[in-house]
């Protein structure tokens, strides 16, 4: 799986910070990814997390969606304002579309479920550290759903619509293909797959499509 990620041997390990209110889960993650990345700290609540993240400046924060004291969203907002360079990968057991979409729109660069395997998580963390996006199959499904059909009228056609290629890439992610398998199937490079997914992430964050705003408004999160 490591060959699937960006070249990993030539640079210092990614500095990762864990935010999750379950001790068992944090120690599990540390064990699973500790050999491949540098875990520089962890927190279980919103306020200490914000403080320590701003102090230690990790490359990637693994952020639990559900946290006591405001949820992952509160951490995202506070850190995002103070230091936009810190990148976030959301991690959750939740399948609720509105939870995930809200975090992505607040700036997280990806979303994976907690059932993800260790090597896949390492891969996802590296991608996020490189500024790419990471979509779980389920998130890819949400996005396809949200951008399905052609509504009238499109406020911003560039942002409110996916290209045929982007849809194709998302479909393969939803089918459970990795980026590399995706590229092989579509006969494009992994880098191109990454570019497409990042473009989708951008649309997801900036588009005002009705379905996206509705998901978020339903939870009154933004």
């Amino acid at each position: 799986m490591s060959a699937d990620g960006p070249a990993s041997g030539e640079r210092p390990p990614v500095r990762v910070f864990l935010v999750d209110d379950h001790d068992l889960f944090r120690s599990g993650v540390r064990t699973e990814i500790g050999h491949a990345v540098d875990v520089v700290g962890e927190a279980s609540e919103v306020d200490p997390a914000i403080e320590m993240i701003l102090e230690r400046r990790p490359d990637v924060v693994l952020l639990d969606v559900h946290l006591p004291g405001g949820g992952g969203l509160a951490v995202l907002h506070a850190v995002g304002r103070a230091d936009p360079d810190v990148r976030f990968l959301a991690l959750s057991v939740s399948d609720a579309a509105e939870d995930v979409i809200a975090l992505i729109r607040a700036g997280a660069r990806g979303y994976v479920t907690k059932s993800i395997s260790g090597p896949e998580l390492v891969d996802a963390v590296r991608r996020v550290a490189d500024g790419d996006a990471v979509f779980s199959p389920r998130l890819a499904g949400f996005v396809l759903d949200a951008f399905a059909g052609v509504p009238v009228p499109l406020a911003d056609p560039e942002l409110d619509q996916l290209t045929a290629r982007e849809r194709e890439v998302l479909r393969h992610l939803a089918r459970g293909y990795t980026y590399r398998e995706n590229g092989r199937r579509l006969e494009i490079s992994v880098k191109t797959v990454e570019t497409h997914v990042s473009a989708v992430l951008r649309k997801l964050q900036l588009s005002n499509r009705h379905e996206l705003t509705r998901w978020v408004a339903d939870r009154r999160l933004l």
Partner: protein
Amino acid sequence: MVSAFSTHQPTPGPPRPASLPPRLTRSVEDRVVAGVAAGLAERFGIDVVAVRVAFVVLALAGGSGVVLYLLAWLMVPRRDASASIAAAAVRRPADAGHLVALGLLVAGGLLLVRELGLWFADALVWPVALAAAGLALLWREQQQDLAASGRGGAPGPPRPLALAGRQAGLRVAVGVLLVAGGIGAFLAANLDLAAATEVVLAAGVAAAGMALIFGPWAMRLARQLGEERRERIRTEERAELAAHVHDSVLQTLALIQRTDDPATAARLARRQERELRSWLYGERAGAATAGGTERLRALLEAAAAEVEDDYGVTVEVVVVGDRPGDEAAHALVLAAREAMVNAAKFSGEPSIALFAEVEHDAVSVFVRDRGVGFDPAVVPAGRRGLADSVEGRMARLGGRAVVRSAPGEGTEIELWLPGGGA
């Protein structure tokens, strides 16, 4: 979602509201006629003498005081009784005779008074009676609200709020209508313009006075009712959650602790997870599960759940779009189920991905595993069934099935069916 449970703590209820004035009753000890004046005085903290003087003045100035007093006597319960005379009469339909007798008695008394010349214009009496009936309705509504909020005793069984709300709304509307009708009738009957202006002015002054006197009390009451209603809803939700967790999660945990077989434990846990997820995030029971009307998404999820239970694997289901669960959809789901069973049996991998997309002109389903795979050109004996049944099934539907696999590369079965979602 585990976090939501672990951080869920019983929250203390809001402080009980400060005691309201006692409910409106007729006094037993301090009474001249029926204890109405003393009761009113006590209820609103006014001097009893002032109330009596008001009644006398109203009685002398046209006689409305008498009518009001009689109505109050009927509508307001005695201190030591639980219900007013009127309420008791209405509540016991078997006692309708009682009610009629009472009505006749009142009418007779009024006629007697009229014969004696202590009367006032009919044009005044009927509007006042109408308005009084409306007010009585409104007041009764308010008292029921108080009773429903369970103050000063064990709360009764919670009323279904929506229903209660509609009934209450209807009663309030009728009450307001009666009051408005009374005022209208009064104005119509006294269309002497000069007098009308005077009456409107007087009514305005009276209304302003009432608002000043009762406004703060009414606002406090409304606030307390809102608070208590919210608390009641919270309590009900908590009870529902507790009941659900008890029936499902706790039972499953008990089962898991008693089983020695890890496969069984994993299966129980997975089934419980699925059930809890659909309860938390899915459409609440009904729409998605109503017999015979399930749509494609629900059918696929049910099929995946069956495979999970039967073979101890996990199936990650992602569905984009949806369509009615017609015959073609059922057949498609059967084919998908077979593909999942195949992956569960032969791939050697415990996880399967299912992706379905409904487009405007076709439906595609992909069942994928990362298992051992095989060479489709050299089909092993056990896999003959897959090609025959799945491909045959799809061909009969006018669609097709494609199997992609290679040794060591997992297997993906694509099912494609023309005709989109509607």
